[in-house]
C-alpha cells in the first residue's frame, strides 16, 4: 500500500505513543467498536496509571475492560461501569477513581474537546445532587444549565471498518458509536482498521471521520475476545 501521508504504521510504531500516567481516550460502547490490537499492545507494554476516558469500562475481558480489570487505570471518566464488576470493586476499594458523566453529556464533552470548544451547557442533571456537584452553573433566559467541560486526551484510539492512507475512516454499523467523537478529541489519534484501502477508494460522501483528525492508521487483527452473548 502506498503511504503518501506517512500515516500507515505498525502496532509497534503505534506503541511508541503510549506511556505511564497518560490520558487515553478510547472508542467503543460495551466493548463494541473498541480496538482490540491497541488494547492488547497497551497491556503487553504494561502501561499503567492511565486516565481513561470513554463511554464505559466494557466487560472484564472485553474491550477496554481488559485494561481496567488488570488495575492499569488510576482514573476513569465514563457514563457507567456496571458491565465490568472488577471496575466497581476497584472503585469501592479506592484503587481507581471514577468520574461519572451522563452518557449524552459525556459524548458532548468529548465532541466539544474534538471541536476545540471549551464546554457545553446542558440542563441534564441540573437539579441532580450527584451530577451537578461541584460544577459551575449558568442561567440563560430563566433556565438553569450546568457547564460541562470539554474533554481531550493525549492519545485517542478508535476502531474503524476501513481506513485510507489519509486516515479517512468509515465504521461498521453500531460499532460507530463513540468512535467518531473520540477520533476528534485526541491530540494524537490512532485508528485501528479492519481494512486499509487505497487512497481514492472511499467515496468522499461516505467518510464519517475525515483523516484531518487521524494521525496514524494501523491494521487490525479483529476482535479477539468472546462476547457476553456468545
Amino acid at each position, binding site marked *: 500500500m502506498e503511504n503518501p501521508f506517512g500515516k500507515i504504521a505498525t502496532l509497534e510504531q503505534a506503541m511508541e505513543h503510549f506511556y505511564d500516567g497518560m490520558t487515553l481516550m478510547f472508542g467503543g*460502547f460495551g466493548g463494541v467498536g473498541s480496538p482490540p490490537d491497541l488494547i492488547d499492545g497497551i497491556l503487553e507494554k504494561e502501561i499503567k496509571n492511565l486516565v481513561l476516558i470513554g463511554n464505559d469500562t466494557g466487560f472484564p475481558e472485553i474491550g477496554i475492560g481488559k485494561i481496567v480489570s488488570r488495575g492499569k487505570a488510576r482514573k476513569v471518566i465514563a457514563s457507567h461501569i456496571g458491565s465490568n464488576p472488577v471496575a466497581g470493586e476497584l472503585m469501592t476499594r479506592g484503587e481507581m477513581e471514577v468520574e461519572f458523566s451522563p452518557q449524552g453529556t459525556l459524548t458532548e464533552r468529548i465532541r466539544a474537546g474534538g471541536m476545540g470548544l471549551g464546554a457545553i451547557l446542558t440542563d441534564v442533571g441540573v437539579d441532580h445532587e450527584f451530577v451537578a456537584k461541584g460544577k459551575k452553573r449558568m442561567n440563560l433566559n430563566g433556565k438553569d444549565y450546568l457547564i460541562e467541560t470539554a474533554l481531550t486526551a493525549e492519545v485517542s484510539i478508535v476502531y474503524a471498518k476501513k481506513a485510507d492512507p489519509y486516515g479517512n475512516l468509515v465504521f461498521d454499523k*453500531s460499532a460507530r458509536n463513540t468512535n467518531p467523537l473520540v477520533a476528534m478529541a485526541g491530540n494524537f489519534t490512532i485508528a485501528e482498521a479492519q481494512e486499509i484501502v487505497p487512497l481514492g477508494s472511499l467515496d468522499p460522501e461516505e467518510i464519517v471521520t475525515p483523516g484531518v483528525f487521524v494521525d496514524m492508521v494501523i491494521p487490525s487483527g479483529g476482535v479477539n475476545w468472546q462476547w457476553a452473548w456468545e
Partner: protein
Amino acid sequence: MGMGIDVRNRMARRAAEEIAPGMVVNLGIGIPSLVPNHLPKETRLMFHAENGIVGMGKSPEKGLEDENLCNAGGFPVTVMEGSSYCDSAVAFGMIRRGRVDLTILGSLQVSQKGDLANWIVPGKKVPGMGGAMELAQKAGKVAVLMNHTDKNGVPKIVESCTLPLTAENCVDIIITDLAVFNIHEGSLILSELFAPHTVTEVTAKTACDFSIVEDIRIIEY
C-alpha cells in the same frame, strides 16, 4: 405468585399499548425488551438505541449475530427498513431535543409524584447512570415497567424515594405485575388492574396514597 414469563409478557403487552404509529421509542433492558413482540406487525415505528441506531428490529437468529450490530446493552440486534446509524452524541441529541417520544424502562423505586430512582443502590451497586438521566428527563413520555414489590415484598411505589433519584417528576405511567398507574401533575392515579388482582391487594402493596379512576379497567390478557 412468581414472576413467570407470562406475567412479564402481560406487562410488556400493556406497555406496547402506549406505542402509537410513527413513534420513536427507546427500550430499556429486561422486560422492556419484550415489548416489540406485542406490537401489531403493521405498526411503523422506530426503536432508538443510545449507542447510535434508529430503527432496531428483532433479535437475530442464533448463529446470525453481527458483533458490530448491538443495542445499548451490548446484545445483537437487527435493523428494519429505514434505519440509520449515527454516533452516540447524535443519538443523545435526539433524546435531549425531544425527538424520542417514549422510553420504557425498569426502575428500583418510583415516587407518588413520579420521581424515578433506577441508577444506584448506595454501598451496594454504583454502576453509573449511563443514559438513564437523559431518557428520564427528556423523553416525551416515560413508562416504567417494574415488579410491584421487590423480592422481599417491599413496595417499590413509595411516597418518597429512599434511593438516590435518577430524575425528579418524570414518570408518566407505571406498569407493574399487578396494576397500571398514571401520574398526572404530580398525582398518582390507579387506572387499570391485571386480573385477578384487586384494589385491596394493590393498596396493601403500595407505600403511598393514590386515587382511583371511576371506570377502572381490568386487563384480562
